[in-house]
């Protein structure tokens, strides 16, 4: 038996963590002419909030046993991040990779990932990062929960599982609130809520031994062509504006420190940067 809810016969918790490979944020810039992200030659990483989701899943496995599976959609270069996730401790990984999926916005992405989760089947918990550092929508996690018809708790910084239920704590403006729902469920994890572990030697050996990453095409998931890729994406990027930072004056005060500080203060007052 597969599909949501079929958890009875298994020992431990089966958690599926959805991850995305993103360009390292601190090395990214926007091309002022084409208004797109300059991705060429920029090293990649697992989307940082997804790393927190993976860490949360690995900690749950330490408590409850079971397995942690990692899922992504993207080009085969994403294997690098899936392998890193295995090196960090995940048991296996799945990549949905197909040219037909190119250009997907968050709607077909959530659709595709939920189809893959359904195919993996027999899960208790789906964890996602709160959002990605290269798109920052936060849509995909909730979208997956919608497609799977399971409850969700978003932006959690703490997560516990007991008696077939998950409890998530989320920070809000004036404190924290705790929500609880039945498994299977989806939880999105707050960026920076835990410290993702480093890859281990055993993990890296498992990656080298191979066979732990499964590739699926759109056809493997029985996805309808009109609902995936660019065709299935309602989002239109209408306009991107880059901000041109004003040039700095670059004035250096060569006087003695005491004098230089006084001159600097004067200059800042004149420019209206500091008052009085």
């Amino acid at each position, binding site marked *: 038996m597969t599909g949501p809810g079929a958890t009875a016969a298994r020992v431990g918790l089966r958690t599926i963590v959805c991850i995305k490979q993103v360009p390292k944020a601190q090395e990214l810039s926007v091309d002022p002419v084409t208004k797109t992200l300059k991705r060429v030659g920029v090293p990649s990483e697992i989307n940082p909030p997804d790393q927190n989701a993976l860490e949360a899943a690995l900690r749950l496995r330490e408590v409850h046993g079971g397995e942690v599976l990692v899922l992504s959609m993207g080009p085969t270069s994403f294997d690098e991040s899936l392998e890193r996730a295995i090196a960090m401790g995940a048991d296996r990984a799945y990549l949905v990779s197909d040219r037909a999926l190119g250009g997907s916005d968050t709607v077909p992405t959530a659709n595709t990932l939920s189809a893959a989760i359904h195919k993996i089947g027999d899960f208790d918990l789906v964890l996602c990062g709160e959002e990605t550092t290269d798109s920052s929508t936060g849509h995909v996690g909730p979208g997956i929960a919608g497609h799977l018809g399971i409850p969700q708790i978003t932006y959690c910084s703490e997560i516990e599982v007991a008696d077939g239920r998950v409890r998530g704590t989320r920070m809000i403006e004036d404190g924290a609130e705790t929500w609880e729902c039945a498994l299977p469920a989806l939880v999105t994890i707050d960026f920076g809520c835990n410290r993702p572990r480093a890859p281990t*030697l055993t993990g890296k050996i498992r990656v080298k031994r191979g066979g732990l990453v499964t590739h699926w095409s759109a056809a493997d998931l029985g996805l309808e062509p009109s609902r995936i890729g660019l065709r299935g994406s309602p989002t239109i990027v209408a306009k991107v504006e880059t901000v041109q930072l004003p040039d700095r004056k670059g004035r250096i005060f060569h006087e003695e420190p005491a004098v230089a500080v006084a001159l600097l203060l004067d200059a800042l007052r004149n420019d209206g940067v500091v008052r009085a």
Partner: protein
Amino acid sequence: MVERFDAIVVGAGPAGSAAALTLARKGFSTLLVERGRAPGVKNMFGGRVYAWPLAEVLPDWARDCPRERVVTKEGIAFLTEDASLGLTFDSPRLGEGRGASFTAIRAKFDAWLAKKAEDAGAMFITGIRVDDLWRESGRVRGVHVEPGDRVAADLVVIAEGATSSLVRKAGLKADVEPREVSVGVKETIELSAETIEERFSLGTGEGAAYVYAGHASLGLRGGGFLYTNQTSVSLGLVVSSEDLATRKVEVHEVQTKFRMHPSIQRLLKGGKIVEYSAHLVPELGANMLPRLMADGVLVVGDAAGFLINNGYTFRGVDLAIASGVAAGEAAEAARAAGGMSGANLRAYEAALRRRNVLTDLETFRKAPLYLKNPRLFDVYPRLLIELAQRVYEVDGSGKGRILDAVLGESKVEGLSKLTMLRDLLRGARSM
């Protein structure tokens, strides 16, 4: 589940990669683990590799080995503050056959050799620091890796380099004493290939290897080196850490003064410093060798103290590769004898002797101690240069005999004839 291998090699420098390559070829499932994110990023060396052991493991090594220049020119020079007295030896035969040597950049050379080990079937993993040997009831079972991870093996080959902590943790060697190590520094100075070939009068692809004594180390025990790469020059020093401490100088100050010496400046003018590195160098040769084997453990390369510095040649990489191969052979012999016990692994010593590794170390056993004589780094270089000045200077004031000049100079330095004679004899014997 604990992953297991027949052998784990810790460190993917020349010693570790040669060991992993040999073990894999002999049918051992082998894991080669490197702490750096790539081989060659954590180490430092002057710049020259003697090729002889490569021919044994990789007969067609010359086809794709990343060499900078084949050394065809050797030089030694004594420096005072503003003068230099040198001897160079040019011979195309230096670059041929079994005795050839070449300059290399370790990040490239080490990556190449690690790839050869991988091609031979070893599993190669980077970015992992091994914490300790995993031992149970006195027997080595593998390695502990942080955090809380471990991997099993019957044999652990320690190839961690000069600052190996595993050798100490394995109880094979006590803590390193300051007098046992020198500090090595190196700057890489970029120059075009044409400039290098012109200034050092080298043919295309030919290289020079120079050593310097005297003011190069500001009279501290140690010396300078210079190697030509394809489009850069490696300039560095190896200086006694004890002397640095007692004279209260920083090694980079010594290096800067060395680089600013007029005879060095002429060679490097217009070059750009693109890299600076420093590392500890084991200095006592055969006198500080750790135990080379124990139950389930072999020690290779710099971790074993396999380094020869006799004043005119610095050897390390060749001994490292040879010792790695010897370790692989020893493991094969031990397997045939029934297991990786320390007694069975004693075959390592014989395998090292077959390659003259231990023999050469013993031959030069006295050299490091002889090199501890401070007069060699201070008084004698000055003496030689003053002598040269007298010999070559014609100012019409009348010239005495050369011997008188030597004796005159030695009196200025406060040296007795007996001391000089004794130093000379000791030097001859230790070389």
